[in-house]
């Protein structure tokens, strides 16, 4: 017998995930970052229908700007059998100039007035920056994101260097864009590749811009073919540095967001390495107001929004939070300087019942710790509390959740 595939009747209520941020209403905290996924009207249309709260259309430029792309542009950092742990691209900006993007903004706002429609821009000269802002505001965009940090190349006088790597250039350019914006909020997308991210954030704050997008991809060399010595992605044996995104860069982004949020009072759009609802919670806990996604969508498609929303809903229920906004900044009081850390005597404790006797903790401690774990005939290792300093290495090499704990010594 054939079983027809019917559209299921939903049996679980949808939790309200909406809140306001930057004066914009977001139906949930999940938006699409400026990337290939937002470069095409049909694709954004599909994403909105599937439940994404907003999109930042791929970085555009004024008409006549030369966009000279090179293919293939994608490569990946695969780790121990996991595909796309990191993703590299040597993409530049959209081949669509502002005229197309204006049209896309109009069409999207017309059909999806409740969604956040933003556009990302990049220019060199003051008048170009300003005309992009004016035209997008007129087209009805909700937000403008300014790419000051595309690692692969910039339009302007200093190619190869990112605008956001110069505090003074950041402040000057940010003033230009803010000057051109009447009501529309402007966010500056920055790079973590700076000596002091706080200085850059302060420059943006001084410029009067409304928010920061933290942060762009990480400059990387994705790999080398060890037989032909061609770097990845190989374009006839040649390559260049990529911008890396995806799970691999999440901890870098978390630090960037946290460091800005701890020091500068400015709204942050979090981006760079978030793949799941719990990543989004982490980004928000260190200060992001909303979270932008890109690589996970390029890997699995817009459908990941289902789990983002479902996972976030269950998390909010569990935590008894009324809205995703309640998460913002929750972890910030817990991030302190090294000097201010509590100093306690801790020791490793192995739960014998959970131990599977792989001896990975033993070998890690023997050759990378303090030779404080002893092998036993039973194979269940024994921690010597005299030699153990409580570094925690064993806990992290242990394959069993909860088997090794760091206990405060009495």
């Amino acid at each position, binding site marked *: *017998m054939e*079983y027809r595939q019917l559209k299921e009747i939903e049996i679980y209520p949808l939790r309200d995930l909406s809140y306001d941020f930057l004066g914009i209403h977001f139906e949930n905290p999940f938006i699409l970052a400026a990337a290939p996924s937002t470069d095409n009207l049909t694709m954004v249309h599909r994403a909105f229908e599937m439940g994404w709260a907003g999109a930042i259309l791929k970085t555009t430029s004024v008409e006549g700007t030369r966009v000279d792309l090179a293919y293939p542009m994608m490569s990946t950092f695969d780790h121990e059998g996991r595909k796309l742990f990191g993703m590299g691209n040597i993409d530049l900006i959209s081949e669509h100039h502002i005229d197309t993007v204006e049209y896309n903004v109009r069409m999207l706002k017309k059909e999806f007035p409740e969604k956040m429609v933003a556009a990302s821009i990049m220019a060199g000269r003051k008048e170009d920056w300003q005309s992009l802002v004016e035209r997008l505001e007129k087209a009805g965009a909700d937000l403008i994101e300014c790419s000051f940090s595309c690692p692969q190349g910039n339009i302007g006088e200093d190619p190869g260097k990112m605008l956001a790597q110069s505090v003074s250039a950041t402040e000057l350019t940010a003033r230009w864009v803010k000057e051109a914006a009447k009501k529309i909020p402007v966010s500056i997308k920055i790079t973590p590749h700076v000596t002091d991210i706080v200085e850059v954030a302060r420059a943006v704050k001084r410029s009067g811009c409304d928010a920061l997008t933290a942060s762009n991809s990480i400059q990387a060399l994705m790999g080398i073919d060890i037989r032909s010595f061609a770097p990845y992605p190989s374009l006839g044996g040649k390559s260049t540095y990529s911008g890396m995104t995806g799970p691999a860069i999440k901890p870098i982004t978390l630090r960037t967001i946290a460091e800005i949020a701890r020091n500068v009072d400015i709204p942050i759009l979090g981006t760079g390495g978030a793949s799941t609802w719990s990543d989004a919670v982490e980004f928000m806990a260190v200060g992001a107001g909303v979270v932008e996604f890109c690589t996970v969508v390029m890997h699995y498609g817009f459908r990941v929004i289902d789990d983002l929303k479902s*996972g976030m809903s269950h998390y909010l229920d569990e935590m008894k939070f009324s809205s995703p906004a309640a998460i913002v900044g929750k972890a910030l009081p817990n991030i302190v300087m090294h000097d201010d850390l509590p100093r306690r005597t801790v020791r490793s404790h192995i739960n014998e019942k959970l131990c599977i006797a792989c001896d990975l903790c033993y070998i890690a401690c023997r050759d990378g710790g303090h030779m404080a774990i002893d092998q036993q005939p039973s194979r269940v290792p024994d921690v010597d509390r005299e030699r153990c300093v409580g570094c925690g290495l064993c806990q992290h090499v242990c394959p069993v959740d909860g088997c090794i704990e760091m206990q405060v010594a009495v």
Partner: protein
Amino acid sequence: MQCFDAPCTAACPTHIDIPKFISMIKSNNVIGAAEVVKTSNALANTCGKICPEEVFCQSVCTRGKQDSPIWIRELHFFATQHEKEKGFSATKAFPKSKQNVAVVGAGPAGLGCAFELAKLGYQVEIYDGRKPGGVPRNSIPSFRLAVRELESDTKFLSRFFKLKTQSVDANRFEQIRKSQEAMFLAVGLGQDRMLGVPGEKLKGVIPVLKFLEKAKANSTSMKIGKRVVIVGGGNVSLDAAATAKRLGAESVTLIYRRSEKEMRVWKGELEEARKQGVEIRFLINPVNIVGRIKAQGIRCRQTRLSRQKDKSGRQIPVEVAGSDFVLDADTIIIAVGQTIEAEWLAGVERQKGGYVKVGEGFQTSVPGVFAGGDMIAGEGTIVQSVAHGKQAARAIHEYLSAK
């Protein structure tokens, strides 16, 4: 993997969105994963425990082309168990404005239909003389499915309809048919088929359903002979064999008139029965039961497979003259199929094999009366019955909406 347009989802009769629930387990949104499963399959926990994944989802897993298939059912069960332990997620209020529909039989098909009808806004009453669950409750051995595992589903479902612990006879059938807008029949196959050989009335000869039901109800106290012979070649006969072993029988022999190739069983179950020490003998036909008051053995005749094939495409076994022998046995279990038990169905047209005939949309010959589950096709798996119920509910909805 998270394949798109995944073959596993297509292969599941209830079309659970498998890539979606697996991705949710991966992100540690296990409750969300359970909700995805339960949105498609009313007997989620039960199917998670015993669905023969080797015939459905897992058999077509894309990953299997690369190395080995994903253990889909294990992940499914992990999710539904987790949700059960945490407490069922609250469901949304379904519309409550539509007509009444009656469901007869609270097995997988009946429950599947009732839940789907409730989602569509119908007021549903289910009639069953026994506690809800049908075959999974009454005759699937406890070692495969404990009652509490089924009850996790029935407990969840019971709030969506009225359960009437009443058997249905000819009068009540007419009464319900007249008082309800539509009716779904899913009474299953409750009557054991017998061999029709001499000696079947002797003490110690037990029809398989009676045996399995008794074993499930009194698994610790039930007595069984030392030497057990089971006649049959289906999954139910394997259940009986494994149960007999567990009840303490010294030897359990299963005899089947064709060869292993023709058996309609799940390979996993066959292996399990062999592992338990069940002896499986092929190409053997029962001739009569030997004994006076109590069965003492079964006279058998060897068969060979002829070149001719039957309608199922399997070679027809023919007896080999002069090959008789007797297998000693004090318990003989007859597991050669089941038929519909309900005599009150007289007015409903049947098809070959005694099954109820249904047209497109699960309609029987009686207007407004629909049927599904084992009684229309004898497909025999829980998930297929749930799918019948679900599809029939949509058909009933179409029928009533057009009325």
